């Protein structure tokens, strides 16, 4: 296909490491591979020698021996010793990997079907939240447009962290198990709904690092990338400042009254970004996740509109709580949109109404 695809395609080892942990994992892997290769050559050297030299067609006569205690003891003991040689460096690395104390920055990452929500909990940037969704257009996936360089590995909002700082990632999930993984950092941690787990990394290079969700989480599991932008300390502080300012500027005034058309236009965007995966662009729903059709749906058009459903989700279904992910305005907009699309006809929903129903 594209040139870059072919050039990268001959990768046959782990991705280049961007953290010491990842580099050490790579070393451990190579060390073990060399040991295994040596054993392999030894064992199959013997086998192929037999195959060559002890063939019947060469007239070799079978000997009758079928036991040899010393040899058997040896080939029990020697592998056991080799295992100790392997276990020792592995143990050291495990202990290092699990040590999430003394972090400079703590970020909580929540896996949601099918996006990642990041909350900066502690350290510089505390209070920042962002939601990170695949940004590769559907046309590329469906083959209606040429695929870009970072096909399937690009998102709207990247996780931004400073270089050379210990970042603790607390993982959890809103619906099913996901797994947060960036190969270059050697960090992978499952995100378990309702539970908190953690891992850490210290990126030693600036740049953009990409990974994917590594636990089957439903139909869009393959479309849930992770992109981390590692920047210098100054750039990071600058980013935090901008982010905070933007947050203030962006915040819609929830008491403002919007027109139906305004809400619908905004809602269409929100719908495309958040709801399409399950309820489809056509509003027909998808049986794969038991998402009902919203088109022609009486519950949707009934008063006062499915505000609670969208705010709080439905427990034990794929319908997630959007209250935390979307602003009052966005929720009002998307509800207005679904109430007035695909032949549905109903009144608009104003941000103030959503705000009133928040618990």
């Amino acid at each position, binding site marked *: 296909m594209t040139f870059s695809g072919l050039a990268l395609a001959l990768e046959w080892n782990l991705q280049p490491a961007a953290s010491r942990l990842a580099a050490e994992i790579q070393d451990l892997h190579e060390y073990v591979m060399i040991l295994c290769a040596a054993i392999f050559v030894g064992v199959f050297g013997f086998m192929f020698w037999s195959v060559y030299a002890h063939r019947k067609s060469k007239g070799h006569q079978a000997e009758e021996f079928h036991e040899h205690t010393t040899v058997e003891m040896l080939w029990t003991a020697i592998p056991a010793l080799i295992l100790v040689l392997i276990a020792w460096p592995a143990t050291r690395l495990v202990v290092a990997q699990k040590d999430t104390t003394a972090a400079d920055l703590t970020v*909580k990452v929540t896996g949601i079907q099918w996006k990642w929500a990041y909350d900066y*909990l502690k350290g510089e940037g505390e209070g920042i939240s962002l939601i990170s969704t695949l940004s590769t257009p559907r046309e590329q996936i469906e083959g209606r447009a040429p695929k870009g360089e970072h096909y399937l590995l690009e998102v709207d909002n990247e996780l931004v962290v400073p270089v050379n700082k210990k970042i603790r990632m*607390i993982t*959890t999930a809103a619906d099913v198990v996901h797994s947060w993984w960036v190969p270059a950092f050697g960090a992978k941690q499952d995100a378990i709904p*309702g*539970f*908190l787990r953690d891992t850490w990394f210290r990126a030693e290079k600036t740049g953009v690092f990409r990974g994917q969700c590594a636990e089957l989480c439903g139909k869009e599991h393959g479309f849930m990338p992770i992109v981390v932008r590692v920047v210098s300390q100054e750039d990071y502080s600058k980013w935090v400042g901008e982010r905070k300012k933007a947050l203030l500027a962006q915040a819609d005034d929830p008491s403002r009254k919007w027109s139906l058309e305004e809400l619908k236009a905004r809602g269409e965007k929100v719908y495309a970004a958040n709801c399409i995966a399950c309820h489809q662009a056509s509003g027909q729903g998808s049986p794969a996740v038991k998402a009902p059709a919203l088109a022609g749906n009486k519950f949707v058009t009934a008063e006062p509109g499915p505000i609670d459903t969208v705010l709080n989700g439905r*427990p034990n279904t794929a319908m997630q709580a959007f209250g935390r992910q979307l602003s009052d305005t966005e929720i009002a907009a998307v509800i207005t949109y679904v109430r007035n699309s695909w032949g549905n006809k109903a009144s608009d929903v104003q941000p103030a109404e959503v705000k009133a129903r928040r618990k």
Partner: protein
Amino acid sequence: MTQNASTHGRQQHYSVPQPAPWPIMGSAALLLMAIGGVFVMNGTRAGWASIGAGFLLLVYMMVRWFGDVIRESEGGKYGGWEDLSFRWGMSWFIFSEVMFFGAFFAALFWARVYSVPDLGSIESNALMWPGFAPRWPSAGPAFEEQFTPMAAWGIPAINTLLLLSSGVTVTLAHWALKENDRRQLVLFLALTVALGVLFIGLQAYEYGHAIRELNLKLSTGIYGSTFYMLTGFHGFHVTCGAIMLTVILVRCIRGHFTPDHHFGFEGVAWYWHFVDVVWLGLFIFVYWL
């Protein structure tokens, strides 16, 4: 066979049964029940018809299949060699049942030792479940109603006594059989069945009490889940055991079995002891501790 030869004498022929349609009938019955079950669980009431048909077929199949076995046994087809097979078979079947219960006990221990404490840890309280106190019994951090856990020293304790004594009576019946004392045999066996039925009755009463007065349901979080799954599967096994005992009782009344050839009796007795032991585990870990 050397060990067989010493205990059971040299027997040259092993009885291999004739072809039979019962197995495939059983499979068909299970298929019907499974399909019906799926439809019922997903809100299609018509599934009940399929479950019913499957169940009837299953019962018919069992009656015929066991009927064949009983006939073969009474017809003298089973000597010591076959008898030993039945013993191995039944023991390992019971072992597999133990492992089945193991899965549910594992769930109980996991909830008590890991998941509930983890959900109530400091960080979890701060970021996920504010205010959740990790105390057992627990129905989890999102359970909002009130419920009362089961007390051990009421009906459950009585039930323990009932089951333990039924273990004794079935053994007395066995001794009577070995002495060829048919009257005692029938008496103690009938007593065993009665104790079993009483146990089931009390268990059913207790369920009613739990649901109505304690607000304890299958959906009462992990406590309700483990409580009803464990006791429910146990109760189901007791029911099966009681039915099996009843069949054996009828066979005893009809004069089946001899003092040295009665594996049908023993197999059921083993099974009964097994449900007994499981109950002890339940009593200790579900009700008491």
